[in-house]
């Protein structure tokens, strides 16, 4: 530490330059983390808040678009409910629609069809819970856009009118669109494109998107066996996020950017300490000649790298949090949470240390003999 500290303060310009690169990458990491969490919330928060353990979709449905392609018979729900370890199972409908409010405001909605009063039906924090056909309970965030209890939203093209009876607590979104809960029969008619007053074809009330399943507490349900018996394709709630539009592509893009940044940061740090170590070669030869052990030299250099990396990451993350607090209040899908931020910053330090360690290992190859003039 004796030498490490004094070098940091002596060559502070050079170290500050290096530190600011790491700090900027740290800042970028915080913003990316916020964007990731924001996008996840925007994409699947409506699903995350469901009390569901797994969904049973149509057999062999495309797993990346299961919610828009799958059709199951509502009777399958009862068969699922009878399986061992399943507490409850009920039909669930999910479809994207364009609607217009009384005030001519266009609102895109993810219509979730549920049976009112069932375990799947949500609590309304404003207004009333869903009671029957023709009603809708909307995501709480829509209140900010001027929608109120008693308003009527009209489904475009077919003209179905839905009365807003209540609002949910906070953000509920699916595929970057706000969620609205309706009665399952209403959902079935909207999905089938049945206009109000028209006769409803027989099969319409038989269809749902999937069966929502809730396991009994601590139960371990064999999904594969149940699928085989009942002719469905199950996904756990987590897996079903991947069936939300764009979800997988967004997350993998951000993760790729993150990993590129980690690698870049580790390489830059490694290159910096390689240059520093090469520049210090004569100095290191002198230190070894006067009896400094390899352990002493490695410990000193690694302490220096650790101070630089941790210090600049903390500065970068701090700046990122400040900047992020500003972005959070904007309409961008952005949310800062402690765990993802820490998980994003930690590899920056760890990989940076690996880069620095590889660089400072050169110390062991410096021959103390070169400290003598005649051997230079």
């Amino acid at each position, binding site marked *: 530490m004796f*030498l490490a500290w004094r070098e940091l303060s002596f060559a502070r310009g050079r170290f500050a330059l290096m530190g600011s690169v790491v700090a900027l990458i740290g800042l970028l990491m915080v913003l990316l983390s916020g964007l990731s969490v924001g996008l996840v919330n925007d994409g699947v928060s409506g699903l995350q808040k469901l009390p569901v353990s797994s969904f049973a979709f149509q057999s062999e449905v495309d797993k990346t678009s299961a919610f828009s392609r799958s059709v199951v018979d509502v009777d399958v729900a009862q068969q699922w409910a009878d399986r061992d370890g399943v507490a409850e199972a009920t039909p669930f409908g999910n479809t994207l629609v364009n609607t217009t409010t009384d005030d001519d405001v266009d609102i895109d909605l993810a219509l979730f069809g549920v049976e009112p009063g069932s375990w799947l039906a949500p609590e309304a924090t404003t207004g009333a819970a869903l009671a029957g056909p023709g009603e809708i309970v909307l995501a709480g965030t829509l209140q900010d856009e001027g929608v109120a209890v008693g308003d009527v939203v009209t489904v475009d093209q077919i003209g179905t009118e839905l009365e807003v009876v209540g609002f949910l607590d906070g953000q509920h979104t699916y595929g970057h669109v706000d969620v609205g809960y309706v009665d399952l029969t209403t959902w079935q008619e909207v999905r089938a494109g049945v206009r109000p007053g028209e006769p409803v074809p027989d099969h319409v009330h038989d269809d749902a998107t999937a069966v929502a399943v809730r396991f009994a507490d601590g139960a371990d349900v064999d999904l594969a066996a149940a699928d085989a018996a009942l002719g469905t394709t199950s996904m756990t709630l987590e897996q079903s996020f991947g069936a939300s539009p764009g979800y997988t592509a967004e997350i993998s893009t951000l993760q790729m950017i993150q990993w590129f940044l980690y690698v870049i940061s580790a390489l830059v740090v490694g290159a910096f300490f390689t240059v520093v170590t090469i520049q210090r070669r004569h100095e290191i030869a002198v230190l070894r000649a006067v009896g400094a052990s390899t352990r*002493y030299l490695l410990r000193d250099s690694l302490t220096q790298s650790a101070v630089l990396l941790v210090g600049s990451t903390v500065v970068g993350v701090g700046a990122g949090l400040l900047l992020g607090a500003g972005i959070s209040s904007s309409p961008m899908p952005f949310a800062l949470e402690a765990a993802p931020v820490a998980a994003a910053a930690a590899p920056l330090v760890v990989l940076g240390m690996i880069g620095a360690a590889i660089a400072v290992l050169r110390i062991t190859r410096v021959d103390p003999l070169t400290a003598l003039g*005649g051997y230079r």
Partner: protein
Amino acid sequence: MATRTGLEIAGVTLVHGDGESTVTALDDVSLTVAAGEFVAVVGPSGSGKSSLLAVAGGLITPDSGRVRIGDTDLTGLSARRLAEVRRTRIGFVFRSGNLLPSLTAVDQLRLPLTLGRVARPRDPMELLADVGMTHRAHRPDKLSGGERQRVGIARALMTSPDLLLVDEPTAALDRHRSQEVVALLAHEAHANGVATVMVTHDHDVLSHCGTVYRMMDGILEVATD
């Protein structure tokens, strides 16, 4: 005191290179320096002067012969043990000081004490005063060549070594400064009872030394002129 041996080199041979192009850097060299004695080794470049310092300092293990510092025999010691001997028993004074650019004069002296436990550490401030240094908070870039060399000498004495090895101390100094620095070395060697070997090109400073040796093609003999 004068009977205590600081350095004893006996029948040391060192061959550089391998195969056809070998150079005998040290050819059956023997040299004994008592505690407090100050000897000089002169000779042309490539004559083996640096090799002598390297062997005496435990930086190279000779092909044959024996090196003893105080009561420690260097023969057969591991690289780790040799580093330990260098740290505790030997002081090095390098060409133009070889100070660390990031350390102030007083920190240059504290450094050897941070490398490990030292049996008889000296007080840095006292030692700086001894070598006539007043600019204690200055880094090497603010020190003159003579001052750097004074700090280098003081640094080498911090651990109260048995042996002081001095490599061309006047290479970067003018005549006047050279005299001062070598006079200081001679004084410190006597005052601290440390066996001192100085390798130099500079014949003007030899008047400060006890025995003067001449190195020629790896053979060491007492200079007669």
